[in-house]
């Protein structure tokens, strides 16, 4: 781990989409972010603020309108097996069974399309090994009986769990997850949280985890990012989301489950809610809670005329 060179580096990133009448709308406004290897980052923010958009930028599926997204000091390349994703929607391949969805990556990586025709014996043997590996994941996500089902036969929550296993089995360097637990009941959710934490520790991944559940964000993350369009600057009401909070969660990591019921937790949740998620409380940018050791920002003088 190199302190001076963080793995992921976003600076002055703007994302604008053209609106119906052609004028661009700013979605992400001057995002600055540095991330070290092995961090578990949870991202929260109001619906529609641009969380999924931020993940797409880190994935490399889209490039920013302005600014730089650097991985290991180099411009990010197209999506590849080093960065996994669990999408909010369209998470599985509809034509593959649950088992085939999970082994898809192992299969794709181990042999090209055509090995099966050239060396069927070798391929069958590897396939068996992959399936055994996948079976372990299926058991962990509680879907061992669903191996031969197709995605349309699963509930939304089951699909998301399969999608998580599908990405996790590849042990990517960075794993991006977009509200993966939105459709889970409380018990399954807790189980999946522990599963993810366990995998995160084992594989030394860096995780970005978007959620609407603030308790979940504070419990899972070693670092919480609050993205929000509800803020003000010296120039008036803000346009497009900024990082309005970037802080380490208190205590060690991973946390014991009783942290969920602690006083610290409820205060933290309360603070995030009022500072980031409430449209009536427009925090000034100078008051943002950017206390994480890697937090930084470049300031635009129009937005914040600092007193000398």
């Amino acid at each position, binding site marked *: 781990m190199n302190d001076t060179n963080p793995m992921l580096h976003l600076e002055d990133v703007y994302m604008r989409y053209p609106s119906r009448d052609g004028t661009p709308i700013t979605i992400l406004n001057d995002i600055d972010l540095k991330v070290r290897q092995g961090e578990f980052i949870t991202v929260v923010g109001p619906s529609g603020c641009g969380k999924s958009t931020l993940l797409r930028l880190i994935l490399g599926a889209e490039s920013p309108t302005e600014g730089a997204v650097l991985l290991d000091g180099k411009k990010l390349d197209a999506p590849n097996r080093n960065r996994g994703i669990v999408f909010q929607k369209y998470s599985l391949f509809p034509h593959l069974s649950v088992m085939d969805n999970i082994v898809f990556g192992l299969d794709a990586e181990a042999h090209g399309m055509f090995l099966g025709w050239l060396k069927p014996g070798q391929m069958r043997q590897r396939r068996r090994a992959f399936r055994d590996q996948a079976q372990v994941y299926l058991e962990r996500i509680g879907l061992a009986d669903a191996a031969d089902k197709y995605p349309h036969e699963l509930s939304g929550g089951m699909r998301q769990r399969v999608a998580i296993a599908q990405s996790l089995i*590849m042990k990517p360097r960075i794993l991006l997850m977009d509200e993966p637990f939105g459709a889970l009941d409380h018990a399954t959710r807790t189980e999946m949280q522990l599963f993810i934490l366990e995998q995160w520790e084992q594989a030394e991944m860096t995780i970005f985890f978007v959620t609407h559940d603030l308790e979940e964000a504070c419990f899972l993350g070693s670092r919480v990012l609050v993205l929000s369009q509800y803020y003000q600057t010296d120039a008036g009401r803000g346009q497009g989301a900024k990082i309005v909070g970037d802080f380490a969660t208190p205590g060690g990591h991973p946390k014991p489950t009783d942290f969920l019921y602690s006083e610290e937790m409820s205060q933290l949740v309360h603070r995030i809610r009022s500072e980031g998620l409430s449209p009536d409380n427009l925090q000034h940018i100078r008051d943002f809670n950017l206390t994480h050791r890697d937090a930084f920002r470049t300031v635009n003088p129009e937005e914040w005329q600092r007193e000398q």
Partner: protein
Amino acid sequence: MKFLSMHAKFGPVTTALLSASLFVLCVAAYFTASHIRHQENPKDKIMPTIGKMWKGVENTAFKEDRKGEYRLWVDTWASAKRLGYSTLLLVLAVLLGLHMGLYPFFEAVFYRFILFFDKVPALALLPILFIIFGLGELSKVMLILLGVFPTIALDTYLRAKAVPREQIIKGRTLGAGSAKITYGVVLPQIMPDVLNTIRLNFKAMVLFLIAGESLAATAGLGYRIFVVRRYIAMEIIIPYVLWMSLLAFVADLLVRLWIKKRYAWYQAH
């Protein structure tokens, strides 16, 4: 008027009766008209009676003609071969559409061209086909192929484009290369839709077949119809037409069953 409501439910017998009703009506209308015409003119050729038609079927299907052939079967085989070859060649249309949908280069080169080519009436170019490919089998196969190729290619193209971008990105993040994404993610997903399109184009293919056979052939269902048309042998034409429809219907059915069996995930999708 409950039976007209959106929520009406019919048992299997009622459904079968309802489905049969229009068939029965048509057949009854035909024989009534035929009967009336025969009362006016017992030699009527336009609407033959069952007896005459059966004679026609017997002569073509179960008796040797002057050449010692069973005409109906020879004709059926000749036409089926032409349709079969052109259907096999449609694989090219599917591959082209798939690549156009996924690779900007193929899209740039082929899309406009195929779109324009789709609007060219293939039939009008038949003489040119005969010159290029000769009067043999090849030109007829090419006519059928050219007639439906653009439609199939464009349809495949649109479907490949409609596969959510997320799926392709997902494939990449799981380490799949272009080949795996093209033939392992996109193609199998759109295959049932593509097969459906091919199935719905059987009718167009048969039309092109008949057109080709009517101009230059020595056997074939379409050829025979055009030959006997000269002496208004409706007692042969009508069974031939029904036979062709039946074959097309069965082919269509087979494709539907295949989709149901092979792509179990598709129906509910």
